[in-house]
């Protein structure tokens, strides 16, 4: 297995005018691993996600993807480099079927006239759903007929299908009930086998401890520390988040 991290952040610093949103962040995410980014509200988590996705540029610091330094000026560039983001609002087209959402902006065509290859897209979608163990009625189901958990699964499946490096997920189960959260977490765990690097932002420490290999804690823009999940516990993480009983790196 390649030891170069899929994503490597070095000394990332981001300020908006006079306000420092992220101060000196360094983090590695390796293939086949799940890293969780945790912190209280306003800790800077979304800013970090947007920087990785290419929507913001770091004020200073370096980003490397698979070892290669990158400078993104907009979101499409990060996609081109194999980064996919699953946003909190999922970014799905409600009236379209699952397979059209999967292939959104990447529709398959066949023949001279650029005719949509619906059959091909449907087949590929169904295979992907099977691999990821996503239970939906059909690849042709319309999004607005699916439950919250099914939609999340579709969004994750889409990101997975197109990502070659890294999948970023922002609060993947925030809006879901217990059963659905379970199902989605299974899917996320299953992604490790596809040797993608996965970065999850989550406020549920239980989930973080269930899923992640490493936990990175932010507080008010500062990186407090990175822990191996197996070697830490909730209390430590909580104290890092809240700042009571400060601990050194």
């Amino acid at each position: 297995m390649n030891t170069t991290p899929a994503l490597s952040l070095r000394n990332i610093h981001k300020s908006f005018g006079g306000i420092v949103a992220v101060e000196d962040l360094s983090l590695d995410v390796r293939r086949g691993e799940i890293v969780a980014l945790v912190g209280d509200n306003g800790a800077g988590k979304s800013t970090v996600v947007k920087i990785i996705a290419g929507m913001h540029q770091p004020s200073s610091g370096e980003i490397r993807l698979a070892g290669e330094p990158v400078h993104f000026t907009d979101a499409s560039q990060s996609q081109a480099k194999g980064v996919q983001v699953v946003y909190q609002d999922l970014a799905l087209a409600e009236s379209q079927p699952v397979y059209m959402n999967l292939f959104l902006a990447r529709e398959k065509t066949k023949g001279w006239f650029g005719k949509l290859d619906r059959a091909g897209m449907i087949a590929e979608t169904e295979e992907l759903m099977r691999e990821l163990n996503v239970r939906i009625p059909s690849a042709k189901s319309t999004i607005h007929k699916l439950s919250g958990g099914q939609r999340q699964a579709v969004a994750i499946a889409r990101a997975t299908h197109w990502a070659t490096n890294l999948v970023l997920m922002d609060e993947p189960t925030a809006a879901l009930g217990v059963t659905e959260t379970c199902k989605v977490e299974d899917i996320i765990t299953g992604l490790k086998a596809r040797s993608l690097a996965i970065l999850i932002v989550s406020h549920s420490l239980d989930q973080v401890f269930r899923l992640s290999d490493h936990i990175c804690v932010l507080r008010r823009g500062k990186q407090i520390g990175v822990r191996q999940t197996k070697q830490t516990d909730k209390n430590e993480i909580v104290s890092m988040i809240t700042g009571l009983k400060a601990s050194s790196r």
Partner: protein
Amino acid sequence: MSVRSTFRRIPVVGQLEPSTYVVYVGFLLIFAAFAVLLRDQGFLTVSNLLNIVQETTPVTVMAIGMVFVLSAGEIDLSIGSVVAIAALLAAVLMRAHNWTLGVAAGLGAGALVGLINGALVAYARLPSFLVTLATMGLLAGVARWMTNLQSVPVIDTTFTSLFGSGSLFGIPSLVIWTALAGSLGHYVYRETRFGARVLATGDNPHAARAAGIKVDRLRLKVLILGSTCAALAGLLYLGRIQGARYTLGETDLLTVIAAAVVGGTRLDGGTGTVLGGLIGSLLMGMLNNGLILMGLAVSEQMIVRGFIILVAIALTLREPHRAP
């Protein structure tokens, strides 16, 4: 056990969204009603039925363009004025030049208007409703100014036979135009990437943008398409009545939108059907025709027509769009 859940159990048909087939059922019902009520009053004759198609062709062409515009989440209120301008421009040019120049100029004028509307919507980020409301008024003034309210006749027989008054192998040219517009429009809408992206943009512009679709460029394209369809409609009117007047197309806007909406295209974008719009337009034309043949007074015609359209729209738009 509600009516709707019982209905869903019917194989195949039960799985269809009502909005997609209301217009077809409505069309057949109204057709059947007129066929019976007017059986010896000239409704079912080939010439009358062909008349209906020919009368509705310009509106059909505009409705197909409007389906694209609405599906992308926009609207174009200026199409009526574009009809007049395209027709007048073409007619004036045809006085001294070949008809092909007139056609090119007419279509070009439509595309230009679409470009202006589209640039304001896509890049200045103004709402299309307001932009096209303003251009509608502006262009109406331009249409009046162009020939100082004078009508312009057209005598070029090649043009008039191609664009409205002639026929090919016995099929009136307007019928061919309807078929062409319908099949081409349907293909682009359903079978091309462009069509898929139009729908995605209207459905969830944020998602479309996040996925990498150039949403601004798409909105521009769709408004150019809508306006060019209106210009084509102007040329078809010109060929049909063989004269251009500043009032052409003035009253068509609401019919076009009604045809699109009754056909199953939502006003807020994201879903639609080109074929539904075509049938919707034919349905309106058939209604007008049948009500006149029934000998109703004008006020009665208007009331019955309005009522039927109201029912059709109520049925079409009952399905919830986004999840509860």
